Structures are given as C-alpha cells and as structure tokens.
C-alpha cells in the first residue's frame, strides 16, 4: 500500500453559475482514482466529461463538493480537501507539480529564472539552479539566446516549452500534466515523452490528459475513462433531481 501516492475517492463536483440564473453543472460524480509510484494514469473521455476539472481538483485549484483526495506528502497521506491553505502551498512546493498548457508569464522574469525558481523554491542554490535550468531549457529546444529574455514575448510553442522545462526540472513525486504536448512538433513531443518516462523511472506518479493517442500509449499504464455525468440543470431543478435520485 505504501506505494500509493494519490488516492481519490468518490469525488463529486457541481458548478453553480450564479451569473447564469444559478444554472448547475454536474461535472464529477463518484469519481475515484488510485495512482502508484512509478506509474501513469491517463484521464480520457470526450470533452466536457470533467478531465480538467478532476486534474485541477487534484491540485486543490478546484474545490470538490464531496469525496477525499489523499496525497502522499513527506510520508503521510494528507487529505487535500480538508488541508489548510498553507498546507496546500507546502504540498505544492515539495510534492505536487502541475503542468498547465499555458505559461503565466511574470513581468520581467527571464526564461532562465522562471525555470530556476522552481528549483530555488525547493531549496536549491541559485547558481546551481540556473545551470540545471539552462540544460533543461536547451533540452527542450530553447537556446541560450532566449534564456535572458522574459518569455512574455515568446511564441506560444516556446512559452509552452519554458513551462515544461519549469515542471520537469524538478523531481516531483506527483505530477499532474494537462496536454503537455499540445502544440509541440514531433521532435519536442518525443522529448516530453522521454521526460515523463524518466520521471516514472524515478518513482513519480503521473496523472495526465493526453489527447494525442500516440503520447497516451507511450506513457500511460492505465486509462481512467470519464463519462458525462448527465446534464445541465436550470436553477430550481436541483432539489427535484435529488428527490428523484433518493
């Protein structure tokens, strides 16, 4: 059991859109997931089935309404759904990495430091961090001439690779990856597959959304197929629905 790094049980999530007359969207219903060290689970299913919602919930970015999300952090299983904000920040700093599709550029921070900060945040010395960061950027095809520039001016693909470099430069015990190869050419896609394989070989648990079947088959050990929960409900329908179910 001790090799379980993520155990999510019976997650449910409904969005209430107050600005649209209280419309409710049921996105997750009784979703469970277990991920062990050194393995990768791919979230699959048509769009709208809650793949991103699940991934974001596992990061504490979305709040689930029901269920628990146990994350192994420093040898203990901690429930993310009840953890205090400071605890979640610490879990994200040390244990839980998240690769989104888009880089949130910070004004004036160079590409090199965007990546190096991921290491210094975890206690690395700045000079050593910059060296490691430079090597990772180069591996993803971001040459030295770009290292000293803030990525805000980079192309979408370059920004994505900076983002990937920032994520893969650290040895995250658990990595959540959202379409890591979305706008990459085949050569860079293969490098990202390599990086994910290396992470698994180090014992990391990966949970990802991969629309590219080639990538999914190359990296996933298991596929969790999500299905549409049902529906969109107008305000007022909620109670009736619950009664029908009861």
């Amino acid at each position, binding site marked *: 059991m001790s090799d379980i790094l993520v155990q999510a049980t019976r997650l449910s999530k409904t969005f*209430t859109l107050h600005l649209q007359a209280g419309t409710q969207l049921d996105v997750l219903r009784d979703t469970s997931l277990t991920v062990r060290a050194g393995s990768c689970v791919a979230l699959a299913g048509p769009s709208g089935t809650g793949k991103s919602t699940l991934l974001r919930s596992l990061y504490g970015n979305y709040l689930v309404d029901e269920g628990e999300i146990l994350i192994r952090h420093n040898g203990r299983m901690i429930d993310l759904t009840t953890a205090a904000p400071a605890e979640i920040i610490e879990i994200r700093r040390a244990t839980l990495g998240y690769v989104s599709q888009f880089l949130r550029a910070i004004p004036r*921070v160079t590409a090199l430091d965007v990546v190096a900060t991921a290491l210094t945040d975890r206690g690395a010395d700045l000079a050593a961090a910059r060296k490691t960061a430079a090597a990772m950027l180069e591996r993803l095809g971001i040459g030295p001439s770009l290292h000293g520039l803030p990525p805000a001016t980079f192309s979408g693909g370059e920004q994505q690779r900076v983002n990937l470099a920032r994520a893969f430069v650290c040895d995250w015990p658990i990595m959540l990856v959202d379409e890591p190869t979305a706008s990459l050419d085949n050569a860079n896609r293969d490098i990202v597959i390599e990086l994910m394989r290396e992470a698994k070989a180090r014992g990391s648990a990966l949970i990802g959304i991969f629309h590219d079947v080639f990538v999914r088959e190359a990296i996933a050990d298991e596929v969790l197929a999500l299905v549409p929960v049902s529906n969109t409900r107008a305000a007022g329908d909620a109670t009736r629905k619950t009664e029908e179910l009861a």
Partner: protein
Amino acid sequence: MNLLEARNLNKQFGRITALDDVSIGLRRHEILAIVGESGSGKTTLLNTLAGNVAPDSGDVYYDRGQGLAPISALGELGLRRLQRAQWGFIQQDPRRALRMNVTAGGNIGERLMAGGGRHYGNIREVAARWLEAVEIDPSRIDDYPRHFSGGMMQRLQIAATLVTEPELVFMDEPTGGLDVSVQARILDLIRSLVRRLGLAVVLVTHDIGVARLLADRLVVMRRGQIVESGLTDQVLDDPHHEYTQLLVSSVLPA
C-alpha cells in the same frame, strides 16, 4: 500559528457598515490579499488591522513573540512603537508617506533614525543600498522626491518602508495610480523583495491580476463582510460566491 489575527471586527461610519463581524488570520511569511469593489470595506479593514482605525467592537491581535495579544492593550505609545519597529505601511499615494522637502536619502534615513540608527555614514550607506534595491540610481540620493516620477516616488516609499526590516507590511493599492508599464515594474519589485525578506503582507487591491501575482491567500469583501476566502488560485479559478463570480468575470482578458 497566526502572526496577526482579527476577531469579530465591527465598524460603522454613520449609517454605513464598513466592517460586519470580520475575522481573519495571517501567518508569518504569508501574503494575504483583500479584494472587493470600492465601498466594500477593504480599506477600512486594512486600516483597522494596521491600528490606524479603532473598531467599534472586536479586536486585532498580534504576536510579538509571546503569543497573540490585543493591540488595543498596547496604549497609543506602544502601538506607535510596534508600527514603527515591526510593521510597515505602503500607501497608494507616495506623497502621503514621503516628505517632499526632504531628500530621497533623508526619507529613508529618517525611518532608520526613528528606529534608533545614529551613525550618519552608515545611514547614508544603507539608504544608498536601498535606493539601488528599488532601482533608483544611488547618485540621486540628495535629490528631492518632488522631482521624481510617480513610479520612482512609489519605489522610494517602498525603500523607506522596508529599510527598518519590518516583519509585517500593509499595502493599500500599491500600484493604484500608476501607468500599466510602471505597475509591472513595481509589482515585480514587491514580489521579489517580499520573497527575499520573508515578509508577511496584507494587501488591499481591486486588481485581481495583482492579487494573483502576489498573494498566497485571498479574501473577497462585499458590504463589510467577507463573502469568500481561500487559496488565491482556487478562489479565482473556482469562485463559489455570486459576487466573486461577478468580480472574476468582469476582468478583461489581457
């Protein structure tokens, strides 16, 4: 373990309720943003936390190393001492915090001397170092802030506030009146200095982008009440309260 805590604060201005049973906690090294529209009570909350406004009921507690104690029990002098030695306050308008007829170096040095610094040479040296830290050419140490641009004045205020090495800094719309290009520089400066110095910060802003960039945690205020709070990215990406949803959806995408 909280560094600062507010318990059940209430404040009424005539018939307007500025604070309606507000409780809040802040940990060491934590950055908390208070967002909300004008009139939501966010500035009153900041001023109450900072000891500048007395609440009608409830109290603010601070841990000076011996556990949380109410700041109302410090007396006026004790509160001043706390504000000068351990706290800092960055105003939206630097003209309200700086002395326009005192040089840049003097504005920084004054704070040091108020904190007990006596050696003139050292003070000048520290002031020059702080000018550099906020990206003002140290050769301008003897210039008057009235000759500075708005962004430079704001950076000078930041230097004059941080020179005493406070552990807690209150910020009221620190990029409020500035051009967008100047804002980015100030934000980046605040972000890196706060990290480097390990400060705890309470930041009031109506700009959600500023909150996202700087804050660990966020509270949303409306009509004197806290309507939602949590991790910054969680509240902004998965807002639950109707008002927070309105606030988040009202932002123009960059």
